[in-house]
């Protein structure tokens, strides 16, 4: 009788600890971030969420990248520049973890914008991405383009992160280390600090959750 009790206790403990290790999988949906607007449609109030506006850039393989390039995909966006002496290398090291984990998923992509397009040309970005171990722009697109358009897409109109030139900042630019998770409707579903491994762990945990929303 006592033996049974102990066995039961063991099983319960193992289950409890396993659950606490896994976290609450599939519990709730990710939030939708950004300013919301409300519109009356047929007498009912409809919520209009903040979405990423249209853009046009060029990636490391000289291909045009627009919102349509991420049709049917969730993607992670960030901002960097090639000669950045501060947080960019660690962001790229962390983004590589995300890339390695999800690169084979056809519903996933990464979009890295340079904020120094004068220096970071298509050819430079090709060399940069090859040196990181990214052989083509199929999954991870490193884009350059018109500087004003890149700053606009980073701002309150787009990804809600500060980017810009600043002579006082190391390397001459200020930018956030954020990784921004975008869903298939181009809404912002998560902001993570790309310089902190545990926040990137959270992102890697959230990507399957977001993909699961499209499964049924």
């Amino acid at each position, binding site marked *: 009788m006592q*033996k049974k009790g*102990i066995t039961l*206790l*063991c099983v319960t*403990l*193992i289950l409890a*600890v396993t659950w*606490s*290790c896994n976290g609450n999988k599939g519990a709730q949906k990710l939030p939708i971030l950004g300013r919301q607007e409300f519109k009356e449609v047929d007498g009912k109030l409809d919520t209009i969420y903040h979405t990423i506006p249209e853009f046009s850039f060029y990636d490391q393989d000289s291909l045009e990248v627009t919102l349509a390039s991420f049709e049917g995909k969730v993607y992670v966006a960030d901002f960097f520049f090639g*000669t950045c*002496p*501060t*947080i960019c*290398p*660690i962001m*790229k*090291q962390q983004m*590589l973890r995300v890339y390695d984990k999800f690169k084979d998923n056809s519903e996933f992509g990464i979009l890295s914008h340079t904020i120094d397009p004068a220096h970071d040309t298509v050819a430079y970005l090709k060399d*940069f991405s090859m*040196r*990181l*171990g990214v052989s083509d722009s199929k999954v991870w697109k490193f884009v350059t383009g018109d500087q004003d358009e890149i700053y606009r897409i980073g701002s309150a109109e787009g990804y809600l992160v500060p980017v810009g030139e600043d002579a006082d900042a*190391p*390397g001459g630019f200020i930018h956030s280390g954020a990784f921004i998770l975008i869903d298939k409707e181009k809404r912002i579903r998560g902001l993570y600090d790309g310089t902190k491994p545990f926040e990137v762990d959270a992102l890697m945990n959230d990507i399957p959750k977001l993909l699961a929303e499209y499964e049924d």
Partner: protein
Amino acid sequence: MKIKKWESLVLLITFIFMGCGSGTKSDNEDVHSRLDTKGLQQFSNGKQLYTRYCQNCHMENGEGLGTLIPPLKDSDYLLNDVAGSARTIKYGLKGPIKVNSIDYNQPMPANPDLTSLEIQELLIYISNAWGNKAEPITLEAVENVVPNQ
């Protein structure tokens, strides 16, 4: 017999919790047997400087980033000329270099505010961390390369 059962239960619980955490083993364990007290103090100061000035690019594990940023761990470029690296730390670097037969071409920023003492500590750290092994560099050797203003 009864005690044994509880013992095994405690063991079981311990194992389960160990499974949750990830075991981290220090890469610098053998340093304690190689460096003397002073050397260890400098190594430890150097680690703090490394975290502040170098780690963003060369990474916590000293492995660098792809073929973009060269490694310090097992780096022939560093270990063949530890004193020469004092110049790189102080004045930065521009143009292509070869590390372990791989070409790198990313500029390294200068650190003009570091003193020769701080550079010595940094060099003792990076030439002895992550399995690297080198005789602790002297202050004199550093100042021969980068005179303290």
